[in-house]
């Protein structure tokens, strides 16, 4: 039996596979299809303080081996989450991570202060990288300074560990990762989606009402692996990798590149039980390769 547990320092996961925010609803949507207790963790859909309307449709377009979305973080807000969802997630034997959003730094702080008064949350994932809520994908994670300032402020109030989720839409992602680390983040997750666009050549209109969206799925995986490798070699805090993971082999690539855990996103849409299948595929690979503890393969990428 492979030991799948992963100690991130601030929390221990029963296995290194989490369901990614924005692809797993509030978790409960998946109960008919998957034992949520089998997940290493689940990151619920991004929460603003108040309910949020989201973008006009069309919100989705499928592209080769990928999906561009511009949902616009439609959601129920923290109060409905705490009243209706959290009581049902609390008893699950898995790490519940809440993805925290804000229109400005004050709102991130307000969300964290509200959630700090609720039980049953293992950590916060600071969503500073959604490309779909401001013009042309603007978000704090595009620059080191606003990332540093926001992480520092949230860390100064939060009673829980903070994972900072980075944007790939930058020139030097390691620089932003270092800013988050200097500001005290407990971990870094990457990557959020790539700012993207698709055009209907008959109507010559963008396929998304929002014009731009975020590209996810297997199309982005090699880009994400590269960024995880770059970040993991520059920071000391644990890195959680994601980007188009569909199989155990895909997940292992991220772990070997330096991620201590992975998140499964778009694959949940195709197979609601994908995260659990991927976990067992990782375990199978470890057994076949004589790896007793999955943590032993983290960052073991060799010289070219």
């Amino acid at each position, binding site marked *: 039996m492979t030991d799948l547990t992963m100690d991130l320092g601030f929390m221990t996961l029963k296995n290194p596979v989490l369901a990614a925010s924005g692809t797993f609803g509030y978790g409960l949507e998946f109960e008919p299809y998957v034992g949520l207790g089998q997940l290493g963790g689940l990151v619920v859909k991004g929460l603003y303080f108040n309910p949020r*309307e989201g973008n006009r*449709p069309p919100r*989705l377009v499928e592209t080769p081996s990928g*999906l561009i979305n511009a949902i616009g973080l439609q959601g129920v807000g923290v109060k409905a989450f705490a009243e209706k969802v959290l009581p049902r997630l609390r008893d699950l034997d898995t790490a519940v991570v809440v993805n925290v959003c804000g229109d400005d730094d004050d709102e991130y702080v307000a969300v964290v202060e509200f959630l700090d008064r609720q039980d049953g949350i293992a950590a916060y994932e600071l969503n500073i990288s959604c490309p779909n809520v401001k013009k042309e994908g603007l978000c704090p994670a595009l620059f080191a300074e606003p990332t540093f300032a926001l992480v520092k402020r949230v860390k100064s109030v939060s009673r829980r560990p903070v994972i900072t989720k980075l944007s790939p839409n930058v020139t030097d992602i390691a620089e932003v990762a270092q800013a988050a680390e200097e500001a005290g983040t407990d971990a870094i997750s990457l990557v959020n989606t790539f700012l993207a666009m698709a055009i209907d050549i008959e109507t010559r209109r963008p396929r998304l009402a929002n014009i731009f969206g975020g590209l996810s*799925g*297997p199309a982005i995986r090699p880009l994400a692996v590269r960024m995880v490798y770059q970040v993991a070699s520059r920071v000391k805090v644990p890195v959680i990798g994601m980007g188009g993971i569909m199989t155990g082999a895909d997940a292992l690539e991220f772990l070997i590149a330096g991620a201590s855990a992975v998140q499964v996103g778009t694959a949940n849409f195709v*197979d*609601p039980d994908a995260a659990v299948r991927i976990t067992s595929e990782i375990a199978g690979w470890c057994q076949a390769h004589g790896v007793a503890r999955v943590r032993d393969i983290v960052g073991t990428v060799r010289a070219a």
Partner: protein
Amino acid sequence: MTIDRNARILSVESWGDYYLFTIESPAVGGEARPGQFVMVKVSSSPFPLLRRPLSIHSAGPVGIELFFKIAGPGTEILAGKKAGDPIDILGPLGKGFTVPASLDGKKAFLVGGGRGIAPLYFLGRELKAAGAEVTVLYGGRCQRDIPLRHKFEVAQLPLLCSTDDGSFGFEGMVTELLGRELGRSPADLLYVCGPDPMMKATAQTVRAAGIPAEFSLESMMGCGIGACWGCVHRIRDGSGDGWVKICEEGPVFPGDRIVWTD
């Protein structure tokens, strides 16, 4: 709601771009209600990546039927499948049509445009079993777009057809045919599925006539299970209106809740 990876195609019929699959899936067939849909995996490769939503054409203890038209690379791959092939389906999903328990003598009009006829066969049979007097209005651009006529005849569901070019039945759009029929004899209930412009026009007709109507909306879907929030439509509720997930709260909505936009 099941992921049935052991489902199997029992038979395939086709008429041009239209396909009818009979699928063995007791898990999905035993649960399905008219108006619900399944998410079909068309390929195990990452392209096309997503499952395709298809409404359930009929269901029973053995499995389901799916009726679809080739509309892109996903349905094209699906159309290449043969009897005996395995197929991975997720469902039944969504909230279907309302079928009141007793409908003795009530008149129901079912209006389908093109591939939008798919769920109305299942619905028509259930309404008839509940005692309703059912009339199906089936429209397409030309005769090739209304291939399922024989199934309604076998099920003894009275059928009126329309084609835009007059190649079969009433010449004109199915909404015009509906207008004519409502002028002759009013209906108590109306159920509609088809392309958006056709449903929008139908909504105007039935609102004017004051008939309670349900519409099955179509959308591209990321997941079909309420997780991605990609398939929204503007829907009214008590306090106002907002973007509501078609997969989870629909695909069927009462006409008075749907906000029709461009």
